[in-house]
């Protein structure tokens, strides 16, 4: 397939944006802000590439250098930071409509007005945050065009035909978004929900297209050895395209939920009235519920992704898990362990405001024990850092006990136990103020307990059994582990729903009476999510090592080396910090809608006096 020489810089723009570790972007506020930036980009791109001369033959034109240098921090770092920021906003604006819609539907089904208000409140966050997304996207585009011209030319050569549907979807997205947002309460609920569904479908499709571009860079496909395009569908449907799509949808929801929960926490801490407190307490809870629910299946999606990377190339797989980046996954384990711990912590503190939940308090220490042990197992590295003396005492850099904990069997088991434990915390929270009234209540609970115990034992058994079978079998064992955990969660939930159908309420949930520390736990979860995303962005881009497009376009710039984890950690921390400054601005702007209308000073004084 020959390159279409009449490419439009607008396509390039989106292409570049997709190359960030983010991808799924939703320019929702196209009309007021985004359109302006788009136009700027179009104009800018024409100036950056005079003559628009991107026929592929002339890609190596001497007038276009392969790289340009960004001052002080270097090209890579600036693109890295901007791309990461862009990704975080994109993830947020993609995810919020998803759970807003779900909440809206819940509201519609249960006829509970509260849910509808909450959904609208979430959607309000969108309006500002995606103009940030657009701004960052434009910035990223400019940077990539300026700093990595020849790489961008290659990407255009491969993906030119994916730009048309992208543009089309983009307009649809804008239309659905604004009709969904501005049309709140102005359509019949069914029509409005339909708009929401369409909004999500279009948003997801946009992300899928964008994902194709960036996954292609990791696992190029559908091209000849010299990089000529053979099959566009092959290039799109490369090895990790679908895994990344799935992983991103889920992770976006988790991330969006955690940010929304942080918003609730922020408002809660500032709330003056009991009513406000109750509302924002509830909002934080719902956001966190969404985040953690989406978070639970995430390790499975990650496993699928890792498997496909191995399938594509053993070298990439080993680079990722065993070589250069193996320590990164220890850091990741610490982050995710923290997430589990904080999520459970939030639930436990929340239970304090449920009358009747005291009876479950005694279980906390066992849950905590299980979490701690799993956390420790998961964070135990395979290659230990040990001094010569210690290594000699161990008989090498391999510890007989830690070595057992350092391999995949143990880690898989730990993750599954973590998931189960968190699920149990949820369950306890859920039945905090309820007492089952069905006649088979006792038996039902025993069955639940039985399933839980059996599955836990089964998961642990498989983990141990994994040490006694050959590796190919061991890899397969993770599947029954995952399935049994899923089975436990589904079946126990099913029984639970029946059990508590007409449950007797033993007490109220005293919304708004939660300790402030729970709100900080929500912040902690949001920060940790954002940081984990940043770290994973680093590894996803970093595993290509000295390639722009793995095995096809080599990175010959000064930044071809892979920086240390320590350096990445600092960049990620700074990026996340900037993100939170931005998101704080978003919170503040969103909060303006509830502000009293401006009045001249005298009037305000008067009203104060009147009140006094």
């Amino acid at each position: 397939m020959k390159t279409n020489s009449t490419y439009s810089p607008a396509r390039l723009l989106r292409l570049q944006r997709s190359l960030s570790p983010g991808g799924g972007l939703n320019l929702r506020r196209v009309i007021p802000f985004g359109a302006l930036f788009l136009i700027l980009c179009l104009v800018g791109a024409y100036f950056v590439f005079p003559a628009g001369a991107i026929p592929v033959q002339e890609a190596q034109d001497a007038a276009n250098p392969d790289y340009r240098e960004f001052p002080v921090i270097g090209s890579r770092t600036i693109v890295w930071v901007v791309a990461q920021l862009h990704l975080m906003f994109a993830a947020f604006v993609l995810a919020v409509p998803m759970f807003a819609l779900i909440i809206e539907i819940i509201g519609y089904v249960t006829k509970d007005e509260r849910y509808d208000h909450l959904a609208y409140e979430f959607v309000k966050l969108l309006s500002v945050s995606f103009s940030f997304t657009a701004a960052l996207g434009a910035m990223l585009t400019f940077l990539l065009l300026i700093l990595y011209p020849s790489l961008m030319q290659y990407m255009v050569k491969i993906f030119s035909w994916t730009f048309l549907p992208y543009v089309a979807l983009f307009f649809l997205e804008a239309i659905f978004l604004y009709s969904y947002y501005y049309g709140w309460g102005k359509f019949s609920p069914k029509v409005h929900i339909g708009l929401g569904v369409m909004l999500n479908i279009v948003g997801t499709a946009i992300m899928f297209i964008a994902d194709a571009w960036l996954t292609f860079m990791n696992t190029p496909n559908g091209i000849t050895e010299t990089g000529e395009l053979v099959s566009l569908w092959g290039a799109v449907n490369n090895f990790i395209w679908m895994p990344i799509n799935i992983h991103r949808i889920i992770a976006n929801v988790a991330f969006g939920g955690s940010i929304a929960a942080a918003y609730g926490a922020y408002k809660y801490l500032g709330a003056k009235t009991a009513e406000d407190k109750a509302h924002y307490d509830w909002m934080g809870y719902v956001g966190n519920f969404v985040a953690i629910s989406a978070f639970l299946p995430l390790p499975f999606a990650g496993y699928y992704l890792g498997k496909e990377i191995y399938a594509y190339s053993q070298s990439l797989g080993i680079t990722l898990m065993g070589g250069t980046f193996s320590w990164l996954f220890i850091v990741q384990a610490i982050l995710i362990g923290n997430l589990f711990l904080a999520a459970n912590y939030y639930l436990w503190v929340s239970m304090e405001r449920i009358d009747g939940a005291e009876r479950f308090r005694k279980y906390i220490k066992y849950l905590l024990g299980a979490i701690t042990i799993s956390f420790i197992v998961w964070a135990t590295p395979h290659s230990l850092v040990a001094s010569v003396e210690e290594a000699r005492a161990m008989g090498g850099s391999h510890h007989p006990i830690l070595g057992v904990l350092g391999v995949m069997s143990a880690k898989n088991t730990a993750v599954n136990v973590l998931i189960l434990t968190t699920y149990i915390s949820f369950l306890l929270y859920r039945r905090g103020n309820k007492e089952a009234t069905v006649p088979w209540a006792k038996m039902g609970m025993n069955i639940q307990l039985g399933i839980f115990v059996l599955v836990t034992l089964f998961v642990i058994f498989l983990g141990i059994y994994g040490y006694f079978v050959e590796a190919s079998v061991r890899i397969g064992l993770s599947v029954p582990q995952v399935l049994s955990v899923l089975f436990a969660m589904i079946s126990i939930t099913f029984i639970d729903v029946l059990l508590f159908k007409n449950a007797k309420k033993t007490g109220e949930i005293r919304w708004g009476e939660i300790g402030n520390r729970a709100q900080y736990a929500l912040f902690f979860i949001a920060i940790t999510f954002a940081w984990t995303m940043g770290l994973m962005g680093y590894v996803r881009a970093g595993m290509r090592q000295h390639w722009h497009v793995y095995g096809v376009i080599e990175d010959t710039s000064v930044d071809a080396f892979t920086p240390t984890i320590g350096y990445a950690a600092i960049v990620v921390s700074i990026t996340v910090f900037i993100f939170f400054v931005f998101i704080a601005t978003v919170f503040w702007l969103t909060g303006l809608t509830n502000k009293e209308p401006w009045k001249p000073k005298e009037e305000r004084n008067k009203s104060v006096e009147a009140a006094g």
Partner: protein
Amino acid sequence: MNLLVILAIIAAWIGLRFLKANSLAWAAGIWVGLYVGLSYGINPPLPSSILSMFMAIITLALVTYLTAGNDRMKEMADTIVTFVVDKRYTGALIGVLIALPLLVSFKVYLNMTQAPEPPISGRTIHPVPPNTITVNGSPFNIVEGHNPYRELESSDPDAFALHLENGRRVYYQNCVFCHGDNMEGDGQFAHGLDPIPANFQDATTIAMLQESYLYWRVAKGGPGLPSESTPWLSAMPAWENFLTEEEMWDVIMFLYDYTGQRPRVSEEVH
């Protein structure tokens, strides 16, 4: 496992139970108990880097526990406040205020006077192989290549047995000095090598690798390692200088056969 230490810790915990200690005391007791247990209860001892990581996680968990419940939180706060404010405990408070700085000073003293540590080599045990290598002049693709004799295992067991027997000879004439008679990395020269030779009985060595990976390691040895695996330290010879390709494959098959492991096979491509 050092049973005595563990028993002592459990005894101390039972003691706490009998004393009806409050949750703050429990947390301290558990922290100290786990610290002692992890430091002295496990043989061989854990590396200090791991120990501090474990203790950090445990600390986090204990803080979580203490603050998760309102009444526990209050109990903790009350205990601390009472201790600090109540006149009855003034003496003890002064003691603690003096003891803590002394402990810190002592720790500083220990840190500054301990024997110097030679540089640690954080070597990668299983580095990424190159895609292709040239063994004695013939190229071999590690990604797609496979053991040309493995198929004999099913197609011609007798020929396979001969290969194994040849592998045994090769092993005991070349490899046994470091990797040991029982392939546990404890040959007669192992004590003088750093890093120590690989233990093939361990489930995390050859069992999780493909035969082509082993072929790379055998053919190219220490000098063929990438820099993150400290090729200058490894005493693994580049066996292509001594052995034929067939001998190298044979000895690889013998390793798997003797240890009862199976090589990892490449996974299905979707």
